Protein backbone atom coordinates (compact mmCIF):
# COMPACT_ATOMS: atom_id res chain seq x y z
CA UNK A 1 0.00 0.00 0.00
CA UNK A 2 2.79 2.36 1.04
CA UNK A 3 4.72 1.42 -2.05
CA UNK A 4 1.74 2.22 -4.26
CA UNK A 5 1.31 5.54 -2.49
CA UNK A 6 4.99 6.27 -3.08
CA UNK A 7 4.66 5.49 -6.80
CA UNK A 8 1.65 7.79 -7.04
CA UNK A 9 3.61 10.55 -5.35
CA UNK A 10 6.48 10.04 -7.78
CA UNK A 11 4.08 10.23 -10.70
CA UNK A 12 2.54 13.39 -9.26
CA UNK A 13 6.00 14.92 -8.86
CA UNK A 14 6.90 14.03 -12.44
CA UNK A 15 3.65 15.55 -13.69
CA UNK A 16 4.24 18.69 -11.66
CA UNK A 17 7.73 19.06 -13.17
CA UNK A 18 6.47 18.34 -16.66
CA UNK A 19 3.80 21.00 -16.24
CA UNK A 20 6.32 23.49 -14.91
CA UNK A 21 8.60 22.79 -17.84
CA UNK A 22 5.91 23.56 -20.40
CA UNK A 23 4.85 26.62 -18.46
CA UNK A 24 8.44 27.83 -18.30
CA UNK A 25 8.94 27.35 -22.01
CA UNK A 26 5.89 29.48 -22.61
CA UNK A 27 6.76 32.12 -20.01
CA UNK A 28 10.47 32.45 -20.63
CA UNK A 29 10.74 31.64 -24.28
CA UNK A 30 7.67 31.97 -26.48
CA UNK A 31 5.95 34.84 -24.74
CA UNK A 32 8.89 37.32 -24.73
CA UNK A 33 9.96 36.29 -28.22
CA UNK A 34 6.43 36.63 -29.52
CA UNK A 35 6.14 40.02 -27.83
CA UNK A 36 9.35 41.29 -29.42
CA UNK A 37 8.35 39.97 -32.82
CA UNK A 38 4.89 41.55 -32.62
CA UNK A 39 6.30 44.91 -31.44
CA UNK A 40 8.96 44.87 -34.15
CA UNK A 41 6.46 43.82 -36.78
CA UNK A 42 3.99 46.60 -35.99
CA UNK A 43 6.63 49.29 -35.50
CA UNK A 44 8.28 48.32 -38.73
CA UNK A 45 4.95 48.19 -40.53
CA UNK A 46 3.97 51.67 -39.31
CA UNK A 47 7.41 53.02 -40.11
CA UNK A 48 7.48 51.50 -43.57
CA UNK A 49 3.97 52.69 -44.36
CA UNK A 50 4.87 56.21 -43.20
CA UNK A 51 8.06 56.35 -45.27
CA UNK A 52 6.35 54.81 -48.28
CA UNK A 53 3.50 57.31 -48.16
CA UNK A 54 5.89 60.22 -47.72
CA UNK A 55 8.08 59.08 -50.61
CA UNK A 56 5.03 58.38 -52.76
CA UNK A 57 3.70 61.86 -52.04
CA UNK A 58 7.07 63.38 -52.92
CA UNK A 59 7.30 61.41 -56.16
CA UNK A 60 3.76 62.35 -57.11
CA UNK A 61 4.46 66.01 -56.39
CA UNK A 62 7.52 65.81 -58.58
CA UNK A 63 5.55 64.12 -61.35
CA UNK A 64 2.85 66.78 -61.15
CA UNK A 65 5.55 69.42 -61.53
CA UNK A 66 6.93 67.53 -64.53
CA UNK A 67 3.44 67.43 -66.03
CA UNK A 68 3.22 71.21 -65.64
CA UNK A 69 6.48 71.64 -67.56
CA UNK A 70 5.20 69.19 -70.18
CA UNK A 71 2.02 71.22 -70.60
CA UNK A 72 4.04 74.37 -71.26
CA UNK A 73 6.25 72.56 -73.77
CA UNK A 74 3.28 71.00 -75.60
CA UNK A 75 1.58 74.38 -75.68
CA UNK A 76 4.66 75.80 -77.44
CA UNK A 77 4.71 72.88 -79.87
CA UNK A 78 1.06 73.46 -80.72
CA UNK A 79 1.70 77.19 -81.24
CA UNK A 80 4.50 76.25 -83.61
CA UNK A 81 2.03 74.06 -85.53
CA UNK A 82 3.71 70.76 -84.77
CA UNK A 83 1.54 67.75 -85.52
CA UNK A 84 0.42 65.55 -82.63
CA UNK A 85 2.54 62.73 -83.99
CA UNK A 86 5.62 64.96 -84.01
CA UNK A 87 4.90 66.13 -80.49
CA UNK A 88 4.61 62.56 -79.20
CA UNK A 89 7.79 61.60 -81.02
CA UNK A 90 9.65 64.08 -78.80
CA UNK A 91 8.57 62.19 -75.71
CA UNK A 92 8.83 58.68 -77.12
CA UNK A 93 12.33 58.30 -75.66
CA UNK A 94 11.22 59.18 -72.13
CA UNK A 95 11.48 55.90 -70.27
CA UNK A 96 9.35 57.01 -67.35
CA UNK A 97 6.43 58.06 -69.55
CA UNK A 98 4.55 54.87 -70.33
CA UNK A 99 1.77 56.57 -72.28
CA UNK A 100 0.38 60.00 -73.04
CA UNK A 101 -2.65 61.33 -74.86
CA UNK A 102 -3.81 64.75 -75.96
CA UNK A 103 -7.53 65.44 -75.82
CA UNK A 104 -9.68 68.40 -76.77
CA UNK A 105 -12.04 70.20 -74.41
CA UNK A 106 -14.72 67.60 -75.25
CA UNK A 107 -12.37 64.86 -74.06
CA UNK A 108 -12.00 63.54 -77.58
CA UNK A 109 -8.62 61.98 -78.16
CA UNK A 110 -6.60 63.97 -80.66
CA UNK A 111 -3.51 61.82 -80.49
CA UNK A 112 -1.81 59.38 -78.21
CA UNK A 113 1.34 57.41 -77.70
CA UNK A 114 2.09 54.31 -75.63
CA UNK A 115 5.17 52.20 -75.01
CA UNK A 116 2.92 49.14 -75.01
CA UNK A 117 0.79 48.07 -77.96
CA UNK A 118 -2.70 49.56 -77.66
CA UNK A 119 -2.28 50.25 -73.96
CA UNK A 120 -3.95 53.48 -72.90
CA UNK A 121 -5.98 52.78 -69.75
CA UNK A 122 -8.05 55.93 -70.01
CA UNK A 123 -11.52 55.45 -68.60
CA UNK A 124 -14.40 57.87 -68.22
CA UNK A 125 -14.78 56.55 -64.70
CA UNK A 126 -11.47 58.14 -63.77
CA UNK A 127 -11.32 61.38 -65.74
CA UNK A 128 -13.21 64.29 -64.29
CA UNK A 129 -13.45 62.61 -60.90
CA UNK A 130 -9.83 63.07 -59.88
CA UNK A 131 -6.76 64.63 -61.47
CA UNK A 132 -4.39 61.82 -60.52
CA UNK A 133 -4.62 58.17 -59.63
CA UNK A 134 -2.47 55.06 -59.59
CA UNK A 135 -3.09 51.79 -61.39
CA UNK A 136 -1.34 48.45 -61.13
CA UNK A 137 0.06 46.82 -64.22
CA UNK A 138 2.39 43.90 -64.89
CA UNK A 139 5.04 46.56 -65.56
CA UNK A 140 4.55 47.94 -62.04
CA UNK A 141 2.53 50.81 -60.63
CA UNK A 142 1.63 53.62 -63.01
CA UNK A 143 0.87 57.12 -61.83
CA UNK A 144 -1.86 58.69 -63.99
CA UNK A 145 -2.42 62.42 -64.39
CA UNK A 146 -5.30 64.02 -66.25
CA UNK A 147 -5.03 67.79 -66.48
CA UNK A 148 -6.06 70.60 -68.81
CA UNK A 149 -4.22 73.60 -70.20
CA UNK A 150 -4.82 76.45 -72.60
CA UNK A 151 -2.65 76.82 -75.66
CA UNK A 152 -1.68 80.15 -77.20
CA UNK A 153 -4.54 79.80 -79.72
CA UNK A 154 -6.92 79.99 -76.71
CA UNK A 155 -8.08 76.43 -77.26
CA UNK A 156 -8.35 74.21 -74.20
CA UNK A 157 -6.52 70.92 -74.33
CA UNK A 158 -6.38 68.09 -71.90
CA UNK A 159 -3.38 65.90 -71.35
CA UNK A 160 -3.36 62.37 -70.00
CA UNK A 161 -0.04 60.97 -68.77
CA UNK A 162 1.04 57.66 -67.32
CA UNK A 163 4.30 57.76 -65.38
CA UNK A 164 6.20 54.72 -64.29
CA UNK A 165 6.62 54.35 -60.54
CA UNK A 166 9.19 51.64 -61.11
CA UNK A 167 11.88 53.34 -58.99
CA UNK A 168 9.39 53.67 -56.14
CA UNK A 169 8.47 50.03 -56.51
CA UNK A 170 12.14 49.07 -56.47
CA UNK A 171 12.57 51.06 -53.29
CA UNK A 172 9.58 49.30 -51.76
CA UNK A 173 10.93 45.91 -52.75
CA UNK A 174 14.32 46.82 -51.28
CA UNK A 175 12.66 48.03 -48.09
CA UNK A 176 10.54 44.88 -47.88
CA UNK A 177 13.60 42.69 -48.40
CA UNK A 178 15.51 44.52 -45.66
CA UNK A 179 12.51 44.20 -43.41
CA UNK A 180 12.39 40.43 -43.86
CA UNK A 181 16.16 40.08 -43.39
CA UNK A 182 15.95 42.08 -40.16
CA UNK A 183 12.86 40.16 -39.12
CA UNK A 184 14.65 36.85 -39.70
CA UNK A 185 17.69 38.08 -37.78
CA UNK A 186 15.58 39.15 -34.82
CA UNK A 187 13.82 35.80 -34.79
CA UNK A 188 17.15 33.97 -35.05
CA UNK A 189 18.84 36.02 -32.33
CA UNK A 190 15.70 35.82 -30.21
CA UNK A 191 15.62 32.05 -30.47
CA UNK A 192 19.30 31.77 -29.52
CA UNK A 193 18.95 34.31 -26.70
CA UNK A 194 15.85 32.84 -25.17
CA UNK A 195 17.08 29.32 -25.63
CA UNK A 196 20.18 30.35 -23.65
CA UNK A 197 18.03 31.90 -20.93
CA UNK A 198 15.86 28.85 -20.86
CA UNK A 199 18.87 26.55 -20.55
CA UNK A 200 20.30 28.71 -17.80
CA UNK A 201 17.03 28.74 -15.96
CA UNK A 202 16.72 24.99 -16.38
CA UNK A 203 20.23 24.49 -15.06
CA UNK A 204 19.51 26.78 -12.11
CA UNK A 205 16.31 24.91 -11.33
CA UNK A 206 18.13 21.58 -11.49
CA UNK A 207 20.79 22.85 -9.08
CA UNK A 208 18.10 24.22 -6.81
CA UNK A 209 16.39 20.84 -6.83
CA UNK A 210 19.65 19.08 -6.00
CA UNK A 211 20.37 21.52 -3.17
CA UNK A 212 16.89 20.98 -1.78
CA UNK A 213 17.30 17.19 -1.93
CA UNK A 214 20.68 17.48 -0.21
CA UNK A 215 19.23 19.74 2.49
CA UNK A 216 16.41 17.27 3.14
CA UNK A 217 18.89 14.38 3.27
CA UNK A 218 21.04 16.22 5.76
CA UNK A 219 18.04 17.04 7.90
CA UNK A 220 16.91 13.44 7.78
CA UNK A 221 20.39 12.23 8.61
CA UNK A 222 20.61 14.66 11.50
CA UNK A 223 17.30 13.43 12.89
CA UNK A 224 18.32 9.77 12.50
CA UNK A 225 21.70 10.52 14.05
CA UNK A 226 20.13 12.20 17.03
CA UNK A 227 17.66 9.38 17.44
CA UNK A 228 20.17 6.54 17.04
CA UNK A 229 22.73 8.25 19.29
CA UNK A 230 20.06 8.42 21.94
CA UNK A 231 19.22 4.75 21.43
CA UNK A 232 22.92 3.77 21.50
CA UNK A 233 23.41 5.72 24.71
CA UNK A 234 20.38 4.06 26.27
CA UNK A 235 21.66 0.60 25.29
CA UNK A 236 25.22 1.32 26.38
CA UNK A 237 24.27 2.01 30.05
CA UNK A 238 22.53 -1.33 30.73
CA UNK A 239 25.24 -3.01 28.63
CA UNK A 240 27.92 -1.63 30.98
CA UNK A 241 25.94 -2.95 33.94
CA UNK A 242 25.70 -6.32 32.19
CA UNK A 243 29.46 -6.34 31.59
CA UNK A 244 30.09 -5.60 35.26
CA UNK A 245 27.68 -8.36 36.20
CA UNK A 246 29.62 -10.85 34.07
CA UNK A 247 32.84 -9.68 35.75
CA UNK A 248 31.25 -10.31 39.13
CA UNK A 249 29.94 -13.68 38.02
CA UNK A 250 33.38 -14.66 36.75
CA UNK A 251 34.81 -13.99 40.18
CA UNK A 252 32.09 -15.59 42.25
CA UNK A 253 30.85 -18.51 40.18
CA UNK A 254 32.53 -21.92 40.27
CA UNK A 255 35.05 -22.73 37.55
CA UNK A 256 32.73 -25.11 35.76
CA UNK A 257 30.73 -22.08 34.51
CA UNK A 258 33.80 -20.22 33.30
CA UNK A 259 33.28 -21.04 29.63
CA UNK A 260 29.63 -19.93 29.63
CA UNK A 261 30.45 -16.74 31.51
CA UNK A 262 33.32 -16.03 29.13
CA UNK A 263 31.05 -16.60 26.18
CA UNK A 264 28.41 -14.26 27.62
CA UNK A 265 31.08 -11.62 28.37
CA UNK A 266 32.39 -11.92 24.82
CA UNK A 267 28.90 -11.39 23.35
CA UNK A 268 28.35 -8.33 25.53
CA UNK A 269 31.70 -6.96 24.35
CA UNK A 270 30.67 -7.65 20.78
CA UNK A 271 27.44 -5.70 21.27
CA UNK A 272 29.44 -2.86 22.84
CA UNK A 273 31.82 -2.85 19.85
CA UNK A 274 28.90 -2.74 17.43
CA UNK A 275 27.43 0.21 19.31
CA UNK A 276 30.82 1.97 19.35
CA UNK A 277 31.22 1.52 15.58
CA UNK A 278 27.68 2.55 15.07
CA UNK A 279 28.13 5.72 17.15
CA UNK A 280 31.41 6.47 15.37
CA UNK A 281 29.74 6.14 11.97
CA UNK A 282 27.03 8.59 12.94
CA UNK A 283 29.35 11.26 14.25
CA UNK A 284 30.01 14.10 11.78
CA UNK A 285 33.59 14.06 10.56
CA UNK A 286 35.78 16.87 11.72
CA UNK A 287 38.63 17.07 9.22
CA UNK A 288 42.06 18.25 10.31
CA UNK A 289 43.97 18.57 7.10
CA UNK A 290 47.75 18.39 6.83
CA UNK A 291 50.13 18.16 3.96
CA UNK A 292 50.68 14.44 3.53
CA UNK A 293 52.62 12.19 1.22
CA UNK A 294 50.61 9.26 -0.05
CA UNK A 295 53.70 7.08 -0.23
CA UNK A 296 54.51 7.86 3.43
CA UNK A 297 50.91 7.15 4.43
CA UNK A 298 50.98 3.79 2.68
CA UNK A 299 54.30 2.92 4.36
CA UNK A 300 52.79 3.72 7.77
CA UNK A 301 49.78 1.49 7.07
CA UNK A 302 52.05 -1.30 5.89
CA UNK A 303 54.35 -1.02 8.93
CA UNK A 304 51.75 -0.60 11.63
CA UNK A 305 48.95 -2.88 10.46
CA UNK A 306 50.12 -5.66 8.15
CA UNK A 307 52.56 -8.40 8.92
CA UNK A 308 55.74 -8.83 6.90
CA UNK A 309 54.29 -11.70 4.88
CA UNK A 310 51.61 -9.43 3.47
CA UNK A 311 53.17 -7.01 1.02
CA UNK A 312 51.13 -4.32 -0.66
CA UNK A 313 52.36 -3.55 -4.15
CA UNK A 314 52.27 0.26 -4.22
CA UNK A 315 53.06 2.32 -7.32
CA UNK A 316 52.80 6.02 -7.89
CA UNK A 317 53.38 8.23 -10.90
CA UNK A 318 55.25 11.28 -9.69
CA UNK A 319 55.38 12.43 -6.12
CA UNK A 320 51.90 12.65 -4.70
CA UNK A 321 51.57 15.15 -1.89
CA UNK A 322 48.27 16.75 -0.93
CA UNK A 323 46.20 18.09 1.94
CA UNK A 324 44.05 15.60 3.86
CA UNK A 325 43.20 14.40 7.32
CA UNK A 326 45.97 11.86 7.82
CA UNK A 327 44.19 9.78 10.46
CA UNK A 328 40.87 9.58 8.63
CA UNK A 329 42.41 8.92 5.22
CA UNK A 330 44.63 6.28 6.74
CA UNK A 331 41.51 4.65 8.20
CA UNK A 332 39.70 4.83 4.84
CA UNK A 333 42.60 3.21 2.96
CA UNK A 334 43.06 0.62 5.69
CA UNK A 335 39.41 -0.38 5.41
CA UNK A 336 39.80 -0.86 1.65
CA UNK A 337 43.03 -2.84 2.05
CA UNK A 338 41.53 -5.07 4.71
CA UNK A 339 38.52 -5.66 2.52
CA UNK A 340 40.78 -6.64 -0.38
CA UNK A 341 42.96 -8.80 1.85
CA UNK A 342 39.95 -10.71 3.09
CA UNK A 343 38.83 -11.31 -0.45
CA UNK A 344 42.18 -12.52 -1.78
CA UNK A 345 43.54 -14.92 0.89
CA UNK A 346 46.93 -15.42 -0.73
CA UNK A 347 46.38 -13.15 -3.70
CA UNK A 348 47.85 -9.85 -4.63
CA UNK A 349 46.79 -6.32 -3.66
CA UNK A 350 47.90 -3.49 -5.86
CA UNK A 351 47.63 0.18 -5.05
CA UNK A 352 48.30 2.61 -7.88
CA UNK A 353 48.22 6.36 -7.57
CA UNK A 354 48.65 9.13 -10.11
CA UNK A 355 47.87 12.77 -10.73
CA UNK A 356 45.37 13.69 -13.37
CA UNK A 357 44.74 17.39 -13.99
CA UNK A 358 43.83 18.69 -10.53
CA UNK A 359 42.85 15.32 -9.13
CA UNK A 360 44.58 12.42 -7.46
CA UNK A 361 43.47 9.02 -8.64
CA UNK A 362 44.05 6.06 -6.33
CA UNK A 363 43.20 2.52 -7.36
CA UNK A 364 43.08 -0.38 -4.89
CA UNK A 365 42.90 -3.60 -6.86
CA UNK A 366 42.76 -7.25 -5.86
CA UNK A 367 42.46 -10.48 -7.81
CA UNK A 368 40.21 -12.15 -5.27
CA UNK A 369 36.81 -13.80 -5.55
CA UNK A 370 35.03 -10.64 -6.68
CA UNK A 371 31.42 -9.66 -6.11
CA UNK A 372 28.13 -9.86 -7.91
CA UNK A 373 26.53 -6.74 -9.42
CA UNK A 374 23.97 -6.61 -6.62
CA UNK A 375 26.70 -6.77 -3.98
CA UNK A 376 28.60 -3.97 -5.70
CA UNK A 377 25.46 -1.81 -5.66
CA UNK A 378 25.19 -2.09 -1.86
CA UNK A 379 28.85 -2.31 -0.94
CA UNK A 380 28.95 1.21 0.53
CA UNK A 381 25.61 0.94 2.33
CA UNK A 382 25.84 1.03 6.15
CA UNK A 383 25.56 -2.37 7.88
CA UNK A 384 25.76 -4.23 4.59
CA UNK A 385 28.33 -7.01 4.54
CA UNK A 386 28.87 -10.15 2.53
CA UNK A 387 31.18 -11.56 5.20
CA UNK A 388 30.11 -13.84 8.01
CA UNK A 389 31.45 -11.67 10.81
CA UNK A 390 31.37 -8.34 8.98
CA UNK A 391 29.49 -5.41 10.47
CA UNK A 392 29.15 -3.43 7.23
CA UNK A 393 30.66 -0.28 8.68
CA UNK A 394 34.15 -0.21 7.14
CA UNK A 395 33.37 0.62 3.53
CA UNK A 396 30.53 2.91 4.57
CA UNK A 397 33.00 4.88 6.68
CA UNK A 398 35.55 4.87 3.85
CA UNK A 399 33.03 6.45 1.50
CA UNK A 400 32.06 8.96 4.17
CA UNK A 401 35.70 9.95 4.73
CA UNK A 402 36.45 10.27 0.99
CA UNK A 403 33.32 12.36 0.42
CA UNK A 404 34.19 14.53 3.42
CA UNK A 405 37.41 15.33 1.50
CA UNK A 406 35.20 16.25 -1.51
CA UNK A 407 36.34 13.13 -3.28
CA UNK A 408 34.57 10.22 -4.94
CA UNK A 409 34.84 6.48 -4.63
CA UNK A 410 33.60 3.81 -7.01
CA UNK A 411 33.73 0.05 -6.99
CA UNK A 412 33.98 -2.31 -9.92
CA UNK A 413 34.02 -6.02 -9.52
CA UNK A 414 33.53 -9.27 -11.42
CA UNK A 415 32.92 -12.61 -9.81
CA UNK A 416 36.09 -14.68 -9.81
CA UNK A 417 38.12 -11.85 -11.35
CA UNK A 418 38.68 -9.51 -8.43
CA UNK A 419 37.58 -6.11 -7.24
CA UNK A 420 38.85 -2.59 -7.85
CA UNK A 421 38.15 0.59 -5.87
CA UNK A 422 38.71 3.89 -7.65
CA UNK A 423 39.26 6.93 -5.48
CA UNK A 424 39.33 10.43 -6.86
CA UNK A 425 40.61 13.12 -4.49
CA UNK A 426 41.05 16.81 -5.06
CA UNK A 427 44.41 18.45 -4.61
CA UNK A 428 46.54 17.22 -7.49
Amino acid at each position, binding site marked *: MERRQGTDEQKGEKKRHAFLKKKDIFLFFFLPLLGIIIIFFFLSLINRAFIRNKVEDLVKEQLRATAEILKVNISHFLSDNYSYEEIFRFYAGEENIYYMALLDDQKK*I*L*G*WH*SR*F*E*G*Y*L*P*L*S*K*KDIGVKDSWT*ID*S*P*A*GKIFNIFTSFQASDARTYQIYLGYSL*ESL*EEMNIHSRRNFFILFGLIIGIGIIFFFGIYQLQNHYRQKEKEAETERREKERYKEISAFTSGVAHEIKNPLNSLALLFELLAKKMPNEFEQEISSGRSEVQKIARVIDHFSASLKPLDLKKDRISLKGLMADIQGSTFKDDIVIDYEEEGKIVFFADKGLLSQALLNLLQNSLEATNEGEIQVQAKKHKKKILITVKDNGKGMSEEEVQHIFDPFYSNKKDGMGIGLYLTKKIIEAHEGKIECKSRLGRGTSFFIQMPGG
Partner: protein
Amino acid sequence: MKQKTNVILGMILLLASLPSFGQKTENFYNVDQEIYIEGKIQNIVMEPRYKENSPFLIITLEEKDTKKLFTVEISPVEFFDQDFHKGEFLIVTGSLTSSGETGNNIIAREVQSKGETFILRDKHGFPTWRGGKGQMSRKGKRKGTRF
Protein backbone atom coordinates in the same frame (compact mmCIF):
# COMPACT_ATOMS: atom_id res chain seq x y z
CA MET B 1 -14.53 53.91 -119.61
CA LYS B 2 -10.97 53.86 -118.35
CA GLN B 3 -11.56 57.21 -116.59
CA LYS B 4 -14.72 55.81 -114.97
CA THR B 5 -12.80 52.76 -113.78
CA ASN B 6 -10.09 55.01 -112.26
CA VAL B 7 -12.72 57.06 -110.40
CA ILE B 8 -14.32 53.91 -109.00
CA LEU B 9 -10.88 52.56 -107.98
CA GLY B 10 -10.03 55.89 -106.36
CA MET B 11 -13.27 55.87 -104.39
CA ILE B 12 -12.65 52.30 -103.25
CA LEU B 13 -9.13 53.26 -102.08
CA LEU B 14 -10.52 56.30 -100.26
CA LEU B 15 -13.14 54.19 -98.53
CA ALA B 16 -10.53 51.63 -97.65
CA SER B 17 -8.22 54.27 -96.17
CA LEU B 18 -10.92 55.73 -93.87
CA PRO B 19 -11.09 52.88 -91.39
CA SER B 20 -7.34 52.63 -91.34
CA PHE B 21 -7.04 56.33 -90.40
CA GLY B 22 -9.68 55.92 -87.66
CA GLN B 23 -7.98 52.85 -86.33
CA LYS B 24 -4.69 54.65 -86.21
CA THR B 25 -5.99 57.33 -83.87
CA GLU B 26 -8.41 55.27 -81.83
CA ASN B 27 -6.77 51.87 -81.85
CA PHE B 28 -6.13 51.57 -78.17
CA TYR B 29 -7.72 49.28 -75.65
CA ASN B 30 -10.61 51.40 -74.44
CA VAL B 31 -11.71 49.93 -71.11
CA ASP B 32 -15.09 51.67 -71.44
CA GLN B 33 -15.86 49.83 -74.66
CA GLU B 34 -15.52 46.23 -73.58
CA ILE B 35 -17.76 43.73 -75.36
CA TYR B 36 -18.23 40.00 -75.49
CA ILE B 37 -18.93 38.21 -78.74
CA GLU B 38 -19.22 34.67 -79.95
CA GLY B 39 -18.85 33.63 -83.53
CA LYS B 40 -17.19 31.66 -86.29
CA ILE B 41 -13.80 32.39 -87.77
CA GLN B 42 -14.17 33.64 -91.31
CA ASN B 43 -10.65 34.72 -92.09
CA ILE B 44 -7.17 34.76 -90.52
CA VAL B 45 -4.50 37.23 -91.56
CA MET B 46 -1.26 38.64 -90.22
CA GLU B 47 -0.74 42.34 -90.55
CA PRO B 48 1.23 45.09 -88.83
CA ARG B 49 -0.67 47.10 -86.26
CA TYR B 50 1.78 49.08 -84.18
CA LYS B 51 5.06 50.63 -85.08
CA GLU B 52 8.29 48.73 -84.54
CA ASN B 53 6.48 45.49 -83.92
CA SER B 54 6.01 42.17 -85.57
CA PRO B 55 2.78 41.44 -87.45
CA PHE B 56 -0.35 40.80 -85.47
CA LEU B 57 -2.70 37.90 -85.78
CA ILE B 58 -6.00 39.31 -87.04
CA ILE B 59 -9.14 37.22 -87.19
CA THR B 60 -12.38 38.04 -88.97
CA LEU B 61 -15.21 36.72 -86.86
CA GLU B 62 -18.84 36.31 -87.87
CA GLU B 63 -21.05 37.03 -84.88
CA LYS B 64 -23.23 34.06 -84.00
CA ASP B 65 -26.64 35.81 -83.87
CA THR B 66 -26.35 39.01 -85.94
CA LYS B 67 -23.95 37.56 -88.53
CA LYS B 68 -22.00 40.83 -88.30
CA LEU B 69 -18.32 40.67 -89.14
CA PHE B 70 -15.75 41.73 -86.57
CA THR B 71 -12.03 42.21 -87.05
CA VAL B 72 -10.36 40.87 -83.92
CA GLU B 73 -6.79 41.87 -83.07
CA ILE B 74 -5.29 38.98 -81.13
CA SER B 75 -1.58 39.48 -80.41
CA PRO B 76 1.81 39.49 -82.13
CA VAL B 77 2.09 36.34 -84.21
CA GLU B 78 5.21 35.16 -82.42
CA PHE B 79 3.45 35.30 -79.05
CA PHE B 80 0.46 33.21 -80.01
CA ASP B 81 1.16 29.60 -80.89
CA GLN B 82 -2.38 28.30 -81.04
CA ASP B 83 -3.60 27.25 -84.47
CA PHE B 84 -6.95 28.70 -85.54
CA HIS B 85 -8.86 27.48 -88.53
CA LYS B 86 -11.65 28.92 -90.59
CA GLY B 87 -15.05 27.82 -89.35
CA GLU B 88 -13.91 27.29 -85.77
CA PHE B 89 -16.00 28.73 -82.96
CA LEU B 90 -14.43 31.52 -80.88
CA ILE B 91 -15.50 33.53 -77.83
CA VAL B 92 -13.85 36.91 -77.55
CA THR B 93 -13.85 39.49 -74.75
CA GLY B 94 -12.26 42.75 -75.82
CA SER B 95 -12.52 46.44 -76.52
CA LEU B 96 -14.54 47.65 -79.48
CA THR B 97 -12.30 50.29 -81.00
CA SER B 98 -14.46 51.18 -83.99
CA SER B 99 -17.81 50.17 -85.44
CA GLY B 100 -20.22 50.99 -88.18
CA GLU B 101 -18.91 52.18 -91.51
CA THR B 102 -15.33 52.09 -90.38
CA GLY B 103 -15.72 48.41 -89.54
CA ASN B 104 -16.18 46.57 -86.29
CA ASN B 105 -12.73 46.33 -84.81
CA ILE B 106 -11.98 44.61 -81.53
CA ILE B 107 -8.79 44.41 -79.51
CA ALA B 108 -9.05 41.06 -77.77
CA ARG B 109 -8.36 40.72 -74.04
CA GLU B 110 -9.44 37.12 -73.62
CA VAL B 111 -10.06 34.45 -76.22
CA GLN B 112 -11.75 31.11 -75.62
CA SER B 113 -11.36 28.33 -78.11
CA LYS B 114 -11.92 24.59 -77.81
CA GLY B 115 -12.28 24.86 -74.04
CA GLU B 116 -9.06 26.78 -73.60
CA THR B 117 -8.83 30.37 -72.43
CA PHE B 118 -6.05 32.68 -73.58
CA ILE B 119 -5.42 35.84 -71.58
CA LEU B 120 -3.93 38.39 -73.92
CA ARG B 121 -4.23 41.57 -71.89
CA ASP B 122 -4.99 42.53 -68.28
CA LYS B 123 -8.20 44.34 -67.28
CA HIS B 124 -6.69 47.71 -68.23
CA GLY B 125 -5.48 46.42 -71.58
CA PHE B 126 -1.82 45.85 -70.72
CA PRO B 127 -0.47 43.34 -73.24
CA THR B 128 0.53 40.03 -71.69
CA TRP B 129 3.32 39.49 -74.20
CA ARG B 130 5.13 42.49 -72.70
CA GLY B 131 5.59 40.49 -69.55
CA GLY B 132 5.81 41.74 -65.99
CA LYS B 133 8.54 43.37 -64.02
CA GLY B 134 11.97 42.76 -65.48
CA GLN B 135 10.50 41.47 -68.70
CA MET B 136 9.61 44.81 -70.20
CA SER B 137 11.99 44.60 -73.11
CA ARG B 138 11.79 40.85 -73.54
CA LYS B 139 11.00 39.70 -77.01
CA GLY B 140 10.75 36.31 -78.55
CA LYS B 141 8.37 33.41 -78.52
CA ARG B 142 5.97 33.39 -75.62
CA LYS B 143 2.82 31.49 -75.05
CA GLY B 144 -0.49 32.92 -73.94
CA THR B 145 -1.79 31.98 -70.49
CA ARG B 146 -3.97 28.91 -70.68
CA PHE B 147 -6.50 27.67 -68.16
